């Protein structure tokens, strides 16, 4: 009898493993190391141009007196975006999953509705919410009008980031709900029953039985949420443009530096500098996700 289920032998298992590793290596590891290398150059991604090794100049530029203010603003926005969107998303998803786990009439329809935005592309989402939050006659502006007020929505520098976070949560809530639902359905009925018989109230059952047993799902959701939010820029880009101070995110800056133009100005771009920002972002994402993973695993073990 072999121990390589579902494979009859070690060989096929290794084959598949090696192919997987090769694909990951070629398309994951090699580009990642490549980004680190080109962050020390002035590469522009254009043909016929010489590439110079410029040491840590790109990093010095990132932290230079002229750029550090803009970059700290981007880092601050990125952290606010990641923390707020992850926390709110987890809480909302948990609530919705608990609700949809009840024996509700038509709950599959509700589940489908909550999951639906996940299927939509970023541009479609951007278009939908740009129309809803159009200050000149969009539905949101009509609602505010009933209360005798108005707003520029995405054009309001104090509100723009909050609205982008809201749309981000709306668009990815479905995935978290599905993960939580899977977790909830894995909790045996008899544990809940035993708790009820022992006289636990609904709140106590939630706090002392459901949530501890959901710990692996919470870990998965928090990590996915943080990593996704720290790297996400697409919504900020389609909803508020590439160079909006109020919604400038680190990953958006990478995109604009590396690939985007600045409308209305002729600016010299460098993909080397974009790569340096990527590495800074990688360090931030790495530190935060490893720290949260360690913390959550420790908590899981304790529960």
């Amino acid at each position, binding site marked *: *009898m*072999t121990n390589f289920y579902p494979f*009859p*032998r070690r*060989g*096929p298992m*290794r*084959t598949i493993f*090696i*192919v997987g590793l*090769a*694909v990951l290596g*070629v398309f994951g590891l090699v580009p990642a190391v490549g980004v680190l290398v080109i962050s020390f150059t002035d590469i*522009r*991604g*254009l*043909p*016929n*141009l010489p590439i110079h090794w410029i040491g840590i100049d790109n990093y010095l*530029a990132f932290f*230079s*007196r*002229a*750029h550090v*203010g*803009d970059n700290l603003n981007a880092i601050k926005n990125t952290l606010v975006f990641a923390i707020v969107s992850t926390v709110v998303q987890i809480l909302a998803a948990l609530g919705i999953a608990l609700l949809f786990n009840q024996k509700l009439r038509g709950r599959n329809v509700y589940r489908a509705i909550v999951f639906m935005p996940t299927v939509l592309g970023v541009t479609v989402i951007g278009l939908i919410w*740009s129309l809803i*939050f*159009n*200050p*000149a006659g969009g539905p949101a*502006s009509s609602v505010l009008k009933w209360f005798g007020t*108005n*707003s*520029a*929505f*995405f*054009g*309001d*520098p*104090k509100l723009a980031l909050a609205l982008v976070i809201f749309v981000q949560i709306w668009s990815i809530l479905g995935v978290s709900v599905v993960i939580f639902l899977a977790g909830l359905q894995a909790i045996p009925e008899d544990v809940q029953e035993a708790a009820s018989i022992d006289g636990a109230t609904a709140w106590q059952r939630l706090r002392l039985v459901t949530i501890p047993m959901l710990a692996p799902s919470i870990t998965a959701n928090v990590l996915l949420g943080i990593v996704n939010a720290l790297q996400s820029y697409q919504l900020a880009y389609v909803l*508020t*443009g*590439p*160079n*909006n*101070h109020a919604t400038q995110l680190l990953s958006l800056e990478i995109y604009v530096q*590396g*690939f*985007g*133009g*600045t*409308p*209305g*100005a*002729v*600016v*010299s*771009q*460098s993909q080397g500098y974009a790569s340096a920002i990527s590495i800074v972002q990688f360090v931030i994402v790495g530190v935060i996700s490893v720290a949260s993973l360690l913390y959550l695993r420790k908590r899981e073990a304790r529960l």
Partner: protein
Amino acid sequence: MATKKLRPRATVRRGTAVLAAVSALAILAGCSATSDSGSSSDSGTPSGTLQVLVSSADASDAAFRAINKSFEAKYPKVKVVFSTISNDKYPAAESSRLTAGNVDVLVAKPVQVPSYAKDSEADDARLAESGSFIDLTKQSFMKNYTPSVLSSIAFKGKQYTIPTGISYETGVYYNKDIFKKYGIDVPTTWSEFEKVADTLKSDGVTPLGIGGKDSWPAGLPMLAAVQGQYPTTADKEGVAKNLWNQKTKLTDAKPQAILDTTEKVFGYAQQNFAGVPYSATPGAFAAGQYAMTPDGTWNYPTIASAVASKFDIGYFPLPTSDTAANNQYLTGKVELRLAAASSTKNKTAALAYLKFFSDPTNYKTFVKLSGFAPAEPNIPSGDFLDSISQYTKKFVPAWDQIWVANTKAGNAALFPFNYVSLTPMGTDSAKAAAQQAQQDWAAAF
């Protein structure tokens, strides 16, 4: 339980290696250029595929499509593959298509930067410098273009691009019916403009409509305000140089006045304009929601079709100086410039395309559909452009055609007149915005 040995282990290992290599090759092959561009010489009858890449705008896209169609009719063996990419994504498309070698004719804007701004050349200038574009200086079709326009786009004495037209960007469209109704004349000085705007306001009409969500449309009044302070090209070149040499500060009286004026213009715009997309302004202007809208002449076809026959449209330079003579010209830019990539595999067709485009008969069609002012002499420019000919007698390049941004400076000094920080686009007063810009500018040196 006995299991049957399927195959020897070494075979498996070899098979694995082969499989990995084949799959990697297959995937990489998919990434490489698959260009089928016919002949590679530059003689004979054009044939094969011609890849044309432009940055998009509704009117010019339609104009290019018309040219492509008649080009294909003239050269039936050529198939034009036309790609149109939005402005903000264009640089990425341009660099990837040039690198992959699957573009023949493309929009490019090599700008020769003055010596004081060394190292701040944008990508297109570097591409021209490194020989990525075909030198068109001696091509016969260059003679079709207006010499003064050509000289304004020359790069180190050579021509790498053909100008498809000229657009003016420092004027405002106005609703002639509203002006008539309130007995308003076209203003020629800043104080007259303020009076017009105040009159409209007191009559309950929103003076200006700006699509601020896209950011750059709010920059058009800033470009007009530069004209008020620095009316001639020499003035503009002078202040650009002095800023780079740090003899002029962004907080000095004139640069500060530019932001003050821009701030006042913002004050006349519709409520919450910072959240309104550029694409929504022609419709709202046509619906009579505001009396004027600052926009470029490139958008005339869109505005005219939105307005249809509801009212008459006029266009005048936004007067930002109290001396009328300083406001007499619209300032503008040479529009989409077409270059031929030197990596083209179909030089014959690429040059034939540029020649065909430059031919006055075909160029006339392009100008008519694109709404651009002609860059060739003796081409009729349409009723609208004729109606503003008094403002365009002399071609005055706009500020954004002269200014070279410094990558070492912070974002607030990008334009460098920091209109994006002004309330409601940002959160600053004109004074604070200028201070922020100066701080970001000085940090570069």
